[in-house]
């Protein structure tokens, strides 16, 4: 199972993308746990994730999050801006998979 954590300012704006990513994962027969949290909770929740994606408006957190994520040996990246804006579940999901693969 793939576990993908999304983080944004309050966990609200990414929840739409979560739904779209889940739909895409289901449509290709993947079992995935995808969830969104606010930036303050993200560090704690990382322990349960295989990859962390952050909303583009929080791109300045990448360095700090990566430091924490390295403890769990996982990758952090900023969600592609257009994929985020257009709630492109496939693109964001593929981005997550490629990051898990690179681990």
């Amino acid at each position, binding site marked *: 199972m793939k576990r993908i954590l999304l983080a944004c300012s309050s966990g609200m704006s990414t929840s*739409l993308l979560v739904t779209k990513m889940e739909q895409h994962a289901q449509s290709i027969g993947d079992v995935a746990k995808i969830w969104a949290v606010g930036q303050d909770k993200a560090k704690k929740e990382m322990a349960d994730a295989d990859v962390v994606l952050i909303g583009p408006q929080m791109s300045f957190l990448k360095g700090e999050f990566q430091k924490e994520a390295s403890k769990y040996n996982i990758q952090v990246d900023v969600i592609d*801006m*257009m994929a985020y*804006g257009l*709630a492109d579940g496939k693109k964001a999901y593929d981005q997550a998979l490629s990051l898990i693969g690179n681990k």
Partner: protein
Amino acid sequence: MFEKLSQFLIPLAGKLNNNRYLAVLRDAFMLAFPLTIFGSIFVVLTNLPFLNKLLSDDSVMTLQSSFAIASQATMGILSVFVVFGIGYYLSKSYDVEAVFGGVIALASFLILTPFAIEAESGEVVANVIPLDRLGAKGMFLGMITAFIAGEIYRKIVQRDITIKMPAGVPPAVAKSFAALLPALITLTVFLAVNVIVTLGFNTNLHDFIYDVIQAPLVGLGSGIIPTLIAVFFIQVLWFFGLHGQIIINSVMDPIWATLALENLEAFREKAELPNIVSKPFIEVFTVGMGGTGMTLAVVIAILWFMKSKQMKQVGKLGVGPGIFNVNEPIIFGLPIVMNPIVVIPWIIAPMVVTGFTYFTMATGIVPRPTGVTVPWTVPIGISGYLATNSFRGSLLQIVNLLIVFVIWFPFLKALDKTNVKKEREAENQNKAS
């Protein structure tokens, strides 16, 4: 040029967002948030405009006075919760026992608070705590005290100046003994300061900090020019794809919250509301309305008047969240970020609206915000009423939306034209191949 600016802004935003004190301050205000909502609900309910038509004036008064405690016990003494929150979250950020940090900060604040009231007649009543000093008036002293108390407490704990209990003592007991010396030392410092100030200078730190720091800072923050500057920076940061509010608000929130509290205190006493600029002014009427940068108007313009498929799709995605003032689809999908075609309306529109809103409230066309807390996700129309306790507030929101619409329209048209052209070219290419 944009690239260079962005390289400069991203680390700066990161630093501001991760600054320990600003993060603690943000969390401390969030701690008080549910309480202020509770208080606000009852202020709104007991001040509904048709209430005096259903009930006699006397019953309205009785109703208001019996429910007043809901906001007095929460927003009326907001500094208490903020002080505890700062002490708690600051200690937590240093990984020392947080709850003791919270109570030590609170006790330090109370030590500096005079337990007496001077009546207008000059008579001094002893053994009472003046409530206003625990509310808006004591906010800045509270914040300063809490940070200093938290710092002293954690330094002593970290230097290991604590009493250690032998193994086998219950953890709760051991913890309270561990906090004993740090608490004694921190509180003694504040006691000494208070004795010096009261005996030596015949005043108290409340009045001193209020006169020297709070009144000038808050006064500055309530002006229209500083507010326009803050709005400008929120918009510029978002233009570079950075969360403008998280960054700017962590600096401005203490000021905007204090201004709102001052209004609420006046509203409760049925006095004239002193401030226009305040937390609800920013969130409900200007830059936060319909999503950051007021983009609900942009969504409407796209859905009704634009032809490009890509823009239509963004509009459809944006309308649902936009109603609840969430607008990431527009910011990143249109996109607004780093898009030179829309930079002008993006920055100008909220500033024009800020000026206009200020004007309508300064002239009394629309009542000033009462200071109640309105959650930022409440839709336009409802939030305007809640913030001002008047339907004119709702009307103002709709006018503001129209202003944004008009400013954006020519720029959206230009963007639409280039998008339609691109889409047509792509189609033709597909057909040709």
